Structures are given as C-alpha cells and as structure tokens.
C-alpha cells in the first residue's frame, strides 16, 4: 500500500452506507450491491467491471461517482480498432517538426564546428532526446487520468467493442496504474490513482486476465420497488399512482419475450413523456400512442399492442 488511498477519511467514502446516501443525493438510486462495490473500488484502488443489459445505468454510475467524489471524469469510448495512439499517448509530430525548423540555426551552431560526421553525431548525443520528451507528448485519456494529481474517475465505456489487443494494453494500466512509453520510460500515477470503471454489454467475453484484475458488478433490471424510487428521483413531477402503474406496466413488459426489453432509461423517458402529455392515469389509448418510447422495434410493438388493454387492466387493478 505504497500509494495513498483515494478516500479522504472525512468524505462520503467512509462506509458503504454513506456512499449509498451520497449516490442517492446525486440522483443515482441503486441496490446495496452497487454502493458496496463503489466503496470497495474507492478503498482497494481496483477497477470495476460493470456488466448488464443496455440502459440500466452503467455509464451513469461512473458519471455520478465522479460528481460525488468531486473528481474530473475522463471518458474513453471504446470501438473496434482503438489503439494506443488514441488511448494512451501520441507524439506531437507537428510541434516536433516546427521546432526542428525553428531550431535549425541553433543546430548549425552546435554542429558548425564539427569536422566529421562522427563528431556531429556525438555532439547531438550530448543533447539527449529533446524531441522525445514529455513536452512533445500528447496525453490521451489513460495518460491524462494518471496525471491528475487529485485523482480522477476514468470511464472506459463499452470495453467489449474494443479488440483483444487493446485489452492486453490495459492490463499494465489497471494493475499498477502505470504506463510504459518506450522513449521515456514508465509513467506512474502522479497522485491518487484514478477510480476506473469499465462497462460492457457482453457482446463478447472479456478476457480472464482483465476480469481477474477487476471487481465485478452486474447490474440487472431493477425490481419494481427500486424502479419506482428511480422514477421518483428522476421525474419528481409524476404522481404516485401513475408512477406505480407505469412501473408495473414496464415490469410486465420485461416478462414478455421481446427483441429489446425496455430498460430504465426507457422507463424514465416514458415517464417524462406522460408528464409532458399531462396524463394522470394510464389508459390503453395513451399507452398505444406512446408505446414507441418504450419499444424500439416494430416487431415488439406489434406483439404488445394486442395485449395492451389486458396489461393496462391488470396494472390499474393491482
């Protein structure tokens, strides 16, 4: 434990409960498991791999954690073909060329008196690798996160979209919070290491090596009670009765065999829609008209529509 712990003992990371409360006060309503994992991540300095269906608030968790800890959020969106030049660092080639041009005369001075080629080279050697120093280094998200002295929250979004090679690249960063740049050497986290979140939609299996270095958090769809709380926090304008109906309705939809199950983000959108339309109680007509907010495939809408009135009746009666 040579590196300082991220947590500052007076702030909200003191215990799992305080983290849960802090998350809640920033509008993120989650299960106890989420709070526990954030607590562990802050204290153990271990990255968190967050998995779960799309739209359950994986990215949001990182964003809110950053706000809660009052740290900058550094985000790296992963995609196929992402490489170290875009994730770690890049040399500022333009600046290097420009400096060479501008320093040409200076170079002449340095080399002017040299008589042989060998002598010139030796003289140049005395000046180190000026052009491959940190001044010419363009930090990309990972390096930037390491250089934040007060710590940061690093979000590697949709890690499953990146290549396997990129995953291997991450290992050094995630295990030791350091990056090796061949021309310069190893750069370590300059202050507090970042809190790292990796999110995955499971389009492919993440390698075991990476999983081993992470804490794992699976966020499933929330149960009705939790979802009601989320809606209450996100759309406070909505009435209690409508909120209950709406959540029950969405929960019933999740039971059905659909191509794309509505997630929390869709529930929130729908709640906002209903508030906007000034609806006080769910009825089949309005539900049919706004179903496209919840369901993103025509197949799904076609499948749900015939059962709509039954569903609504069940929800209203409950």
């Amino acid at each position, binding site marked *: 434990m040579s590196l300082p712990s991220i947590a500052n003992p007076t702030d909200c990371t003191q215990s*799992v409960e305080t983290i849960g409360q802090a998350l809640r006060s920033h509008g993120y309503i989650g299960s*106890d*498991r989420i709070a*526990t*994992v954030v*607590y*562990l991540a802050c*204290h*153990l300095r*271990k990255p*968190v*791999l967050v*998995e779960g269906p799309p739209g359950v608030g994986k990215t949001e968790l990182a964003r809110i954690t950053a706000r809660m800890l009052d740290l900058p959020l550094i985000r790296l969106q992963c995609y*196929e073909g992402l490489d170290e030049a875009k994730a770690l660092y890049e040399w500022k*080639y*333009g600046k290097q*060329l420009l400096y060479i041009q501008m320093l040409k005369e200076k170079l002449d001075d340095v080399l002017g008196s040299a008589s042989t080629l060998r002598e010139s080279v030796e003289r140049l050697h005395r000046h180190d690798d000026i052009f491959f120093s940190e001044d010419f280094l363009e930090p990309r998200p990972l390096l930037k996160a390491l250089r934040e002295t007060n710590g940061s929250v690093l979000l590697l979004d949709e890690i499953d979209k990146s*290549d*396997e*090679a990129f995953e291997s690249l991450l290992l050094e960063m995630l295990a030791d919070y350091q990056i090796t740049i061949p021309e310069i050497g190893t750069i370590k986290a300059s202050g507090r290491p970042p809190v790292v979140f990796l999110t995955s939609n*499971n389009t*492919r*299996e993440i390698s*075991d090596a990476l*999983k*081993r270095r*992470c*804490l*794992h*958090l*699976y966020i*499933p769809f929330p149960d009705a009670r939790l979802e009601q709380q989320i809606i209450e926090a996100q759309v406070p304008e909505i009435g209690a009765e409508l909120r209950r109906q709406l959540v029950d309705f969405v929960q019933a939809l999740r039971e059905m065999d659909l191509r794309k199950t509505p997630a929390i983000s869709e529930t929130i959108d729908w709640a906002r829609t209903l508030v906007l339309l000034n609806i006080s109680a769910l009825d089949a007509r309005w539900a049919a008209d706004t179903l496209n907010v919840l369901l993103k495939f025509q197949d799904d809408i076609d499948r749900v529509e015939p059962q709509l009135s039954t569903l609504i009746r069940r929800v209203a009666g409950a």
Partner: protein
Amino acid sequence: MEATLTRFVRALRMANVRVSTAETLDALRVVELVGWGDREQLKHALAAALAKSAYEVDAFETCFERFFRFDTFTADHSIDNATESDTTPASDDAQTGPENPPAVGDGAAGAGGAQANGTGGGAGSESGGPPPDREYDLHALDRSALAKSAVDFDAGSATSPLGRLLLADDQTAIAMAISQAAREHRLEDIKVFTQQGLYTRRIMDSMGRPALIDEMIALDASTDSADRQLGAALRSRHDRLRRQIRDHVEGQFLLHADARGERLRMQMLHNARLGNIPPNNDHLVRRMIERMARQLVAVHSRKRRVTRRGTLDVSRMIRRNMRHDAHMVELAWKSTYRDRPRVFVLCDVSGSVAYYARFMLMFLYSLGEVISEVRSFAFCSALAEVTDLFQRYDLDEASQRTLAAHGQGGTDYAAAFADFEQLALDDVDRRSTVLILGDARNNHGDPRTDLLRKIHDRCQRLIWLNPEPRAAWDSGDSEMGRYAAHCHQVSACGSLAQLERVVSDLLRRVG
C-alpha cells in the same frame, strides 16, 4: 478468518466458479475492509471480488447461502450464552470479530449451531435465512424444558468429558467441538451420500461418545433415582447432539460433494457414447451441452485481426504520414478480419439415429442461441428448415415439434439433398460451412452423390458427422464410403467429447 475464506473459495470452485489465487487475496482484502458484521454487505463485497460474470454471480449466491448460514444459533446464543461467548477462547473459526461473533460464522460453526430439534434432513439443504417461526418455537420450548431439568444437574455431575460438555449446554462450545472434530476427519472430502452416516459416527466418536455411552449405561443400571434422571437427561442430549452432527454433515455434503459428484458424472457422460446415455440424464447432458456451447463461443467469438505480413496499405499509409510532412515514417499494413462462420446444419432425425438426433438437436439449439448465423434443417426423407422453430420455442418444444413434423418415414438422403438444393443452396457461398449429421444409411436407395458434390463445390467446407463408430461404416445399407469422397472432412461423432472437438475445430478453421 483466512481458513474460512479459503474453504469458501474451495466450495466455490466446486460449484464451477473459477477463482484464482489473486482473487482469493482480493477477497481477503475485501473482507478486511467490510468486516464480517453485515451479512448482506459481505455477500455483495465477496461477489464483486470473486464472481466475474452474471452466470458466476448466480452460482456464487447459492454457494454463499449454503456456506454462511444464519441459524437459530444466533438468537439462542445471544440470549443464553452472551457472557460466556465473549470470554470463550474461540477457535480460529469463531474469531469473527468480537462485536458479533457467530452471526456470520463459517459454514461449520453455523451449521453446527443449527439446532437439531427434529428439523432433520431438509434443514441442511436450501434454507439460508432464519428458520421459520414454528421451528424456533419448538426449539425454545425444548430448551426451556431442558433448562428446567438442567437445574438439577450441574456440569460437574457427569464424569465423561462429552457428558460434561452436554450438561453445560454451551452451544458455542458444542458447535466448536463439532466443527473441530469434522475438520480432523476431513469432512470436506465427503464424496457420496451414503458416507453421511459414517462421518456422523466418526465425529461423534472422536468427540468422546464411547465414554459417554459407558457412563449412561452405568447410570441407567444405578439404583439411585437421581442417577437415573441424570442418565435420561444425558441420553436426550446425546440424541440431540447426534441430530446436530447429522445436520452439519449433511450441510457439508451438499456444499462439497454434491458439486463434485456432479462433475464426476459429467466427466463420465462426456466420454460415454451418446446412444448409451440413459434418458434420465437429459437435464445433466443439456447443461453440459449448454456449457460446452458457451465455452466454444467464448473461445472463438473474439474477432481476430490477422495482419497480412508484407502487404502495404498504400492509401492508408499516405494518409497517416501527412502529419510527418508526407515523409513515409509510419508504415500501415493491410489486415483482414476473421468473421464468424455461416453454418448450415442438416440433421437426420429418422428412427435409426433417433437417439443421437436428440443430442444433436440439443447442441444445435445451444449453438444457435449464441451464434446467429446458424441455419438448421431436419430431414428424414423430405427436408425442411427448422431455424425458425428453434428460435421461437424452447428446446423441448422445438425438438418435439421437429421430430413430430419431420421424423417419420425411412431415410432418403437423395430426396433430402434435392430439397436442400432447392431451399438453400443459393445461399451457400464460399464462406459457409455445411454440417451433415447422419448415419448415411440410405435404405439401399440411390445415394445421388452428384447432389452432395454440388454442395461440396459451393461451400467452403462440407463436414459429415456420423454417430456410428468407423467400423460400422459401409456395412449394410450405409453409404458412408461413397459420401465421404465428396466431403472435406468426415468424423465419427459418437460422444460429447468428439462432438466438442469437431465443433471447436470447425469454429477455428472457418474464417
């Protein structure tokens, strides 16, 4: 504490959760951080450190519930023995933090504390939470009755050590003694159900049962009524202790041996000929096949970018080197992506291969759940596409419908190939793989190898999997030899192990 955690990790591994040493160390740090005090929090925290996929989280939770059990023990203990427990020199297992010692004990202490007031068998299995009220009440009655009678005998009145322990009625001490004896006898190595009695007995014996029995016999024979009463009290406690140990043994059996036994069975099934697997193992085979499909896909689903050495991508290189003033500093190579194979599977579902067909369909189904590009066909004489059926229904329903719709009549490969040509041959291209599952027994009809040749010429690979052993090929009405000439690869595929090898090979090579 470490010992408890290591044993928990061992139980997890038995339940097919892969836990590395590094993760065990993580778990230790996690426990240091959250402590043993709050059970739910401990569960969440350990899950984060140990279970690394949604599938493993499920397994973890079952295992956790079995291992760390809440029992009447706590209630009991806090009422009656609170003072004693704080001063009891605890064994390493009971050292779970002074503020709340046995609330989350390890499996041993927890299960040992499960008071055996007639809860018998079921108690050991699933119940993770506090037991229902009824049991608790019974137990309370039981205890108060005992407590009354115990007034007459203080611990010193029994001569044997076990008798004294029982009369002292210190549940913590008893539970600890049980778990210690269990460890001495390596209870976690229990393998089969029938060993439970043996282990129970051994544990009792090493706790000092023989001396207790002698004492009870002596007391029973005594003429003094007080002695006889003492004997009766000892006997009832002895019985209770036996139930308690039995419970503990059963809990440990479920935790360790059940999973191991299943692995053993799976191993056997893995290598057994498919036709010999009795139908009552269906659910097990199905789980195996699902796991196999999942593993295969996990291994092969990563797209690999293969650099084609020596081929420069000129346009990309010029673009990339613009920033170097168009000096060609960085080179760009052409690369190719391996893409997912498109697979067509033709499955013979006639009577002669009915046994195999069931497994083949199972495998097909599992594979179809993870790879989208599988089109499945079933045939007997006429061939029909069943992809849709598989997508729409669950496995049992889909297999039944397939067999009902297409499983009648004698096999006619010629007709099946002709149908395939009409239905899907146009979609077969040089990237596709065609897989035929069948015994090639054509009922002496015209084999029509020319049709098979057509498929062969269009696709990238044509693979024939025959459930019969090689020795049986070409015997009777089998046309395997003639068909084999028109296939890229022919394999005998009689067991799950063979099936796995073939499919793994298929996924690797295609692309």
